[in-house]
């Protein structure tokens, strides 16, 4: 099951990754489990653990419980500051 993950703004800079295509293992099926799986990659991924980091699935704001499925586009980013 492959998904695209995008990172924005300060989070993108902290991780040094803008976009990646990943194959998710079975058991990863929502935003919370995806985040945990990414965090398990190592200390460099700690910026993703900050409570303020938001998520979107297929370009709609998502919660920890939001489902992530094959082909989805998931994004992680800090609170927005436009306007």
């Amino acid at each position, binding site marked *: 099951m492959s998904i695209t993950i*995008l990172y*924005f*703004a*300060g989070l993108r800079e902290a991780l040094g990754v803008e976009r990646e295509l990943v194959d998710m293992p079975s058991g990863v099926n929502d935003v919370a489990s995806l985040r945990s799986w990414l965090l398990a990659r190592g200390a460099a991924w700690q910026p993703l653990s900050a409570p*303020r980091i938001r998520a*979107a699935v297929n*370009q*709609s*704001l998502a919660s920890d419980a939001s489902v992530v499925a094959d082909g989805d586009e998931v*994004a992680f*980013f*800090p*609170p*927005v*500051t*436009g*306007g």
Partner: protein
Amino acid sequence: MSVETNIAIQHEDFDVGIEVDALSGTGVAGAVATFVGFVRGGADDVLAMTLEHYPGMTERTLRDIVGLAQARWFLLGVRVIHRVGRLLPGERIVFVGVAGRHRGEAFAACQFIMDYLKTQAPFWKKEETANGARWVDARDSDEAALKQWQT
């Protein structure tokens, strides 16, 4: 009557006069309310600001926000422009214009759209200062402004 909606994310500047003319052009509007946001100059030590966004989600979010406003007030036209890229102090960042039959709904919808844009639309500002660059933090007052529409 269909509501004319225009949403644009762009690098280039915009002309407020042209936007107001586009909103009032149908001849049925009795009021056009506008908001223009600028890169703050003066006391801050900001030399420039770079605006980043999430292409696709930005447009979708702004359309949804305008839809919420249209469900709440009878509007004749809405135009939203948000610039991205590097901007200098004093430059325009954002335009929201709302046409209505009367000033009440035009004022209210304009503020509503800005309050939602500030807290929901995926834009991020990075400031350049003499001491380096920093990402702008979200403000609690913006969340408070949003909540006043949700009670």
